[in-house]
């Protein structure tokens, strides 16, 4: 296995991780601030992708498609928060699980109702398609490089928002004590709607960006949702930094595991068995990673609370 291949795989893992981070960031914010396990977060991912595909289909503009994804997902998030979630803050967390489960059903089947059962078309813009040659002769798709850049930019922006702005301080204070922050004069419900919309918008953006190189179809959000949960749990719930590290770890593990585990197994057994066994273990690798992290640190890498 050549160095070039290994570097390329690391880039792939990084890119995958960075996209997971977009999902994980919203999830960890919403969970950290509102204590809400939002199963419907994957739906915003899907909504973003469909909105982008629809707009790209009509206008042909990728940029407009991305903007549409952000706006539509944010609106969907704000609406969900105001119509459903808001009524459930006072009740048991488990009720929120049931409610967001119901939302998945509604969003998925609703989207299918509107757009039909067939996958939609959403393609990379011409300016970003095709490979570029990196130093060292590595050929790498330009679009994926762009994704890495977008992910890092979002991370930076979120970090700034959370750590450096007053809204960020208020959000973190809300994580500590919701009632108290309201009693100090801060409109907590507006803040929540905002966070929810922000999280949804990030998920929608991820959906549009990733949908461009994957398939835009109903149910596309659930597998990513599970992975995003894995990321935030590894990183420690509520921590943006944790979500980022967790996402990168998951991205690298799943990408590199799928490649190197079968190779590793070939040392011990015949290629066919090694392929299948290695592939099985690779599917499990991120879950094994997560269990190991949690057994070692029961509140994740950067988490303080359960």
């Amino acid at each position, binding site marked *: *296995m*050549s160095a*070039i*291949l290994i570097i*390329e*795989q690391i880039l*792939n*893992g990084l*890119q*995958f991780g960075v996209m997971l981070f977009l999902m994980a960031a919203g999830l960890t914010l919403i969970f950290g601030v509102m204590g809400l396990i939002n199963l419907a977060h994957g739906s915003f991912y899907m909504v973003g992708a469909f909105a982008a595909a629809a707009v790209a289909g009509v206008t042909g503009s990728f940029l407009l498609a991305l903007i549409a994804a952000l706006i539509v997902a944010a609106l969907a998030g704000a609406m969900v928060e105001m119509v459903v979630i808001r009524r459930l803050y006072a009740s048991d967390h488990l009720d929120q699980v049931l409610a967001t489960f119901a939302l998945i059903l509604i969003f*998925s*089947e609703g989207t*299918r109702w509107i757009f039909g*059962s*067939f*996958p*939609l*078309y959403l*393609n*990379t813009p011409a300016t970003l*398609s*095709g*490979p570029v040659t990196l130093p060292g002769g590595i*050929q790498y*798709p330009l*679009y*994926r490089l762009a994704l890495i850049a977008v992910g890092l930019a979002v991370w930076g922006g979120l970090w700034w928002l959370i750590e450096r702005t007053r809204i960020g301080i208020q959000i973190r204070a809300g994580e500590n004590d919701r009632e108290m922050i309201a009693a100090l004069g801060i409109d907590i419900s507006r803040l929540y709607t905002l966070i929810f919309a922000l999280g949804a918008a990030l998920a929608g953006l991820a959906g549009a960006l*990733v949908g*461009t*190189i*994957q*398939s*835009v*179809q*109903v*149910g*596309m959000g659930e*597998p990513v949702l599970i992975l995003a949960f894995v990321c935030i749990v590894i990183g420690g719930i509520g921590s943006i930094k944790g979500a980022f590290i967790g996402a990168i770890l998951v991205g690298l593990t799943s*990408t*590199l595991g*799928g*490649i190197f585990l*079968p190779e590793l197994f070939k040392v011990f057994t015949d*290629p*066919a068995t090694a*392929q*299948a066994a290695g*592939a*099985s273990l*690779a*599917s499990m690798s991120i879950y094994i990673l997560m269990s190991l992290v949690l057994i070692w640190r029961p509140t994740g890498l950067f988490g303080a609370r359960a």
Partner: protein
Amino acid sequence: EIKVGMITTLSGGGASLGIDARDGFMLALEQSGRDDIEVIIEDDQQKPDIAVQLSDKMIQSERVDVMTGIIWSNLAMAVVPGAVNQGVFYLSVNAGPSQLAGPGCHENYFNVAWQNDNLHEAAGAWANQTGYSNSFMLAPNYPAGHDALTGYKRLYEGESAGEIFTELGQTDYAAEIAQIRASGADSVYFFLPGGMGISFLKQYADSGVDIPVIGPAFSFDQAILQAVGDAALGVVNTSQWSKDIDNPTNAAFVESFEEKYGRLPSLYASQGFDTANLLISALETAEPSDADAFRAALKAADFDSTRGEFSFGANHHPVQTIYAREVVKEGDIYTNKIIGTAIENHADAYVGECSM
């Protein structure tokens, strides 16, 4: 009055296949003008346990004579053995797991589509014809994926440049594509149905790797092609059906389907259509209540197939010609065009293991 129970996937991510099969089936019934066939349609949600439950309902409560509709092999394995053992006829519109073609074959089970391996075998044969001698192979890590590679390699005579089993449901193939790039292969064979195939093709096209790809039709059905777009152009795939197979039945089918549903039919639709026509042809000669006569009538396969000639082998699976198609653009629509015959009058590899 004949009762047909159709269990198929109508909701969730895999719904497009079930809907196509159902629409094809219903179109044929409508065109036959018969009003004595009642079809009960249920959604299995692509969950085996729901499928079993629905099959119990069809058999115990609705007392159907014939069942059909299942898309996925794992659901078929859950439903079919039980159903046929209770005396119901099962006509498969799609799933063709090897067990049901080999040791698990049954006199009441007819597959009108293909045995799962068929299209892969044809791909292997086509690879030989094209002169590929070093294929990179890719399939999901589940039984149908293992069967796919086995099927491909059954007839393919060249070398293996690498074999990868990917995660079921995987959507990012950057890592695999990097390996393909580094492998020195002269062709890439892949079996990635549904969203997996869309993702793979788009990412493959964007990667700059230009090794030709080949695969079974499952990854290039009418719905998928529209979602992949330009990235699929020129890709070769193998199918027992294509919209340009030249016979009057097929031409009429394609036209009426498009007229009725406003979209081009897929191979699943053609399979549904053929299944219904097989059923109707058998009903002309016998009633399901007379099981032996009805079975013989089915076996005779005396109907006009969209595929042209159609006949069953000893294990009630099709013996058929499989074509190689290329993805082309006709106006705004991406579709397939036949470019050759991959394999002629092909029966499946398991017929010997069937004791019928």
